């Protein structure tokens, strides 16, 4: 029975911890079924276990809460603040009773009836929380069951013992290898290695904790604090999964709580005030954590009133004896940072929430104690952003191990964008005077040769591998000899003599047993004199020698099923076309599309028409040189590819300019110049567009029906011949007598041709346009 009870206590406690966030989220979105279910499950489980374990009080409370929540689940009740408060109060009470049972202490049961009564519909007083807090609580000692609190010292010792073990294993392995051993011994050693590695992992992890451990309590705290002050605050939390040294998390707990309470108390205004200044009634509070280089950055941002520096200065002048005028001369940032001076609070009266004699000075001292720093960014009236930087030292960070002149260094993986091998034109290093510059796929980056930088080589050898390192404001290429592998390493602070170089961020002892230094990406950049300002990267790009520009091409499948490419720039668009819109007219393959006729170029030659007809649909690459337009029928467009390597020119001039390599395969590149020269209709730039003359009895119909069609295709249209001009083509109905000496396109009114075969049904737009184009071509 005792075991069961312990199990129940531990489980309930764990669930309670996990639940506190859910409850608040439920309150924010009462219709959120998932949250509701989670809470319901909790009280339901407690109720079930209580009956079994004979705990009548818990049973009564959980039963009442379950009933109320069941009503909400079935839709009979709508969750309101009163209900949420009442359920919260009961959940709290369950927690208190659990602790009391665990400690074997007695807990007064007064007020429990009130808690249950508060669940009743229409009971709208939020009092129950107060009642439960007012109830005299015995100091209950938490007896740990599932988790043990450990001194970090002990963990440190465990960690160093572990490393010792790894080194001993390595030594043993080396010696055994030297003497040559039986397979059985080797297998045993293998097993030992495996176990040691696993242990090391576990032990390492004992020091690390997700920052969630710090953040998970925030929703509840924010809710309670805000409720107490009559404010509403929406909290969003980001980056809970960032891992941080346990010790750091503990050290950050108090400062974080203090900052958040401050933000809600002093920063965020009351709903009425917020309305008055045109803000939303809900204050917003964002707490986020992220890893940046060698630091963990925790940001607390509110949209409250910010720091009133004027009042701050007045107060500080009063307590420090410095003149207000002198203080007014400080920079904005320095003014805001007066908040950190002892004995100061920007708010006039201390409240129960903040201002309990613990000021921001203590917060700053705490942060600095763990080697961090705190920054303020206040916009008066708009809000305050507090940024806490804590070092990554003592944390485990993923690194990339690089080698230069035989020595290995670690680079924080987060700072490395990519690793590339210098090869070909796409990734190369050029000298700008004496300054190397790396070109990585069109991107020009300043380069630092690690060996020369560290003084390991007088003259930088030709770079082999480049690690692209991102630093604040830009990136640079770090030339190294080798890239070994990625490794998760425990980084320890390096002694001052090492840190003073500005090149390293810490030291570590990897499995090899040889100490290794962690490079500081921004330190290297600073040492090399790289300046990433607003304009700097652009300057570099402009100053760089123009390498062979990569050619962007469109890869397509031609009518004959062969992959070919065409420079993308000359392709206006790719359009689907039907086979029937392609006709062989006036010695050229032409496409009628969108009411215009486009000459087509193709490699397929005479077979083109058959190939086109064989396909249900084709696409046409429409290309224009500014004057003429041609089309190139293809089976389908595939992809846009960059071709960095130079083209292999074709031996003879023709529709193929040469070969380019695409994914390791040679692909023919179209010679657009040749295509235009051969396919485009000779353009008569100096002349006006060809004139179409409407003649005969149906000229009026043509005027009304055909004028827009022909004009859209680039013809001029006239019903009466302007003086001194000859029409390029004359349109007339079958049988009309034509007096003008010009090619004639005959139209007919019936669909099926009865008379002359060369007449065209007058509503067959494509055929009409094709015929006009063909005849106009003859004239020209």
């Amino acid at each position, binding site marked *: 029975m005792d075991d069961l009870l312990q199990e129940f206590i531990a489980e309930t406690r764990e669930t309670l911890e996990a639940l506190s966030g859910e409850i608040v989220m439920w309150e924010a979105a009462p219709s959120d079924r998932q949250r509701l279910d989670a809470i319901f499950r909790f009280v339901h489980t407690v109720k079930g276990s209580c009956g079994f374990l004979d705990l009548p009080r818990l049973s009564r409370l959980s039963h009442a809460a379950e009933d109320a929540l069941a009503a909400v689940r079935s839709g009979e009740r709508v969750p309101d603040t009163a209900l949420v408060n009442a359920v919260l109060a009961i959940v709290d009470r369950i927690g208190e009773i659990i602790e009391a049972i665990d400690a074997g202490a007695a807990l007064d049961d007064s007020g429990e009836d009130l808690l249950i009564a508060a669940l009743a519909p229409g009971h709208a007083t939020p009092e129950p929380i107060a009642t439960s807090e007012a109830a005299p609580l015995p100091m209950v000692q938490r007896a740990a069951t599932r988790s043990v609190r450990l001194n970090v010292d002990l963990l440190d010792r465990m960690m160093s013992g572990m490393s010792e073990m790894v080194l001993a294993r390595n030594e043993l392995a080396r010696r055994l290898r030297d003497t040559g051993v039986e397979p059985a011994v080797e297998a045993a050693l293998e097993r030992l290695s495996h176990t040691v590695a696993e242990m090391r992992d576990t032990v390492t992890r004992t020091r690390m904790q997700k920052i969630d451990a710090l953040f998970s309590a925030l929703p509840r705290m924010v809710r309670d604090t805000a409720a107490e002050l009559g404010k509403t605050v929406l909290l969003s939390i980001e980056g809970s999964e960032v891992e941080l040294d346990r010790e750091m998390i503990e050290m950050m707990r108090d400062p974080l709580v203090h900052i958040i309470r401050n933000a809600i108390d002093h920063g965020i205004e009351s709903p009425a005030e917020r309305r008055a200044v045109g803000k939303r009634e809900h204050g917003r509070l964002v707490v986020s954590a992220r890893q940046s280089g060698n630091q963990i950055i925790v940001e607390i941002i509110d949209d409250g009133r910010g720091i009133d520096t004027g009042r701050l200065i007045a107060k500080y002048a009063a307590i420090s004896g410095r003149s207000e005028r002198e203080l007014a001369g400080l920079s904005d940032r320095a003014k805001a940072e007066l908040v950190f001076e002892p004995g100061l609070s920007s708010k006039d009266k201390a409240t129960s929430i903040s201002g309990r004699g613990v000021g921001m000075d203590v917060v700053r001292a705490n942060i600095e104690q763990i080697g961090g720093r705190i920054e303020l960014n206040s916009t008066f009236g708009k809000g305050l952003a507090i940024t806490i930087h804590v070092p990554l030292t003592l944390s485990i960070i993923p690194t990339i191990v690089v080698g230069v002149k035989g020595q290995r260094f670690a680079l924080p993986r987060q700072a490395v964008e990519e690793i590339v091998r210098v090869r070909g034109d796409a990734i190369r290093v050029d000298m700008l005077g004496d300054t190397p510059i790396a070109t990585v796929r069109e991107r020009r980056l300043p380069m630092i040769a690690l060996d020369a930088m560290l003084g*390991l080589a007088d003259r930088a050898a030709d770079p082999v591998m480049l690690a692209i390192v991102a630093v604040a404001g830009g990136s640079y290429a770090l030339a190294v000899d080798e890239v070994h592998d990625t490794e998760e390493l425990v980084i320890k602070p390096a*002694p001052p003599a090492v840190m003073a170089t500005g090149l390293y961020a810490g030291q570590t002892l990897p499995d090899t047993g040889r100490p290794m230094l962690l490079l500081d990406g921004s330190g290297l950049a600073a040492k090399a004199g790289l300046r990433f300002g607003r304009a700097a990267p652009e300057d570099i790009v402009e100053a760089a020698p123009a390498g062979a520009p990569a050619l962007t091409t469109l890869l397509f499948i031609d009518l004959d099923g062969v992959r070919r490419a065409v420079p993308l720039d000359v392709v206006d668009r790719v359009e689907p076309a039907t086979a029937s819109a392609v006709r062989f007219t006036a010695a050229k393959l032409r496409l009628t599309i969108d009411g215009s006729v486009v000459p087509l170029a193709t490699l397929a030659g005479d077979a083109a028409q058959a190939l086109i007809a064989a396909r249900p649909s084709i696409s046409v690459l429409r290309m224009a040189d500014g004057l003429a337009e041609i089309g190139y029928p293809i089976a389908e467009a595939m992809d846009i590819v960059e071709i960095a390597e130079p083209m292999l020119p074709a031996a003879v001039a023709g529709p193929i300019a040469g070969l380019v390599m695409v994914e390791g395969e040679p692909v023919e590149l179209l010679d657009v110049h040749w295509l235009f020269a051969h396919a485009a209709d000779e353009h008569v730039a100096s002349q006006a567009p060809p004139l179409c003359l409407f003649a005969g009895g149906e000229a009026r119909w043509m005027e009304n029906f055909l004028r827009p069609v022909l004009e859209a295709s680039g013809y001029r249209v006239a019903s009466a011949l302007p003086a001194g001009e000859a029409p390029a083509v004359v349109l007339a109905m079958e049988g009309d007598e034509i007096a003008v000496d010009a090619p004639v396109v005959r139209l007919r009114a019936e669909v099926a041709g009865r008379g002359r075969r060369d007449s065209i049904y007058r509503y067959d737009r494509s055929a009409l346009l094709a015929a006009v184009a063909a005849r106009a071509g003859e004239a020209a």
Partner: protein
Amino acid sequence: MTKLFLIARIAGRPVAIDSDQVDSAVDVPEITPIPGAGDAVYGLAALRSRVVTVINTCIALGLPPLPHPPQRAVITRIDGHHYAITVDQLEDVAPFDLLPLAEGVAIEGGWARAAAGLIVRDGDPMLAIDLRALIPGLAAAA
């Protein structure tokens, strides 16, 4: 006041080191250089599971460097970091009285910074040194 001192030889001179400052005495393990850290630091070495910074004691004292690689060192812990102070050899551990430097004695050169007093062994006076003074990069922090 009598304290335990470690008697060692640095740059051919016998010196006394307060045993409170000494963690252990070791053979210098394989050293990984620290590019850019200056001559006073040989580099880093792994000593059991700890990384220690190996100090070139002669250079730290402003003396010409040893012609051969360091053999022995005493380990000291300063401000949370472990350092290996290289020595020529270790001779003795014994209790001595720390005496002030004799009046009028001006210690010359780099020794001056490290001098903490003197002890007398078998009638021979020798310099007692403070290891902290040998660590580069601490001056500003101290």
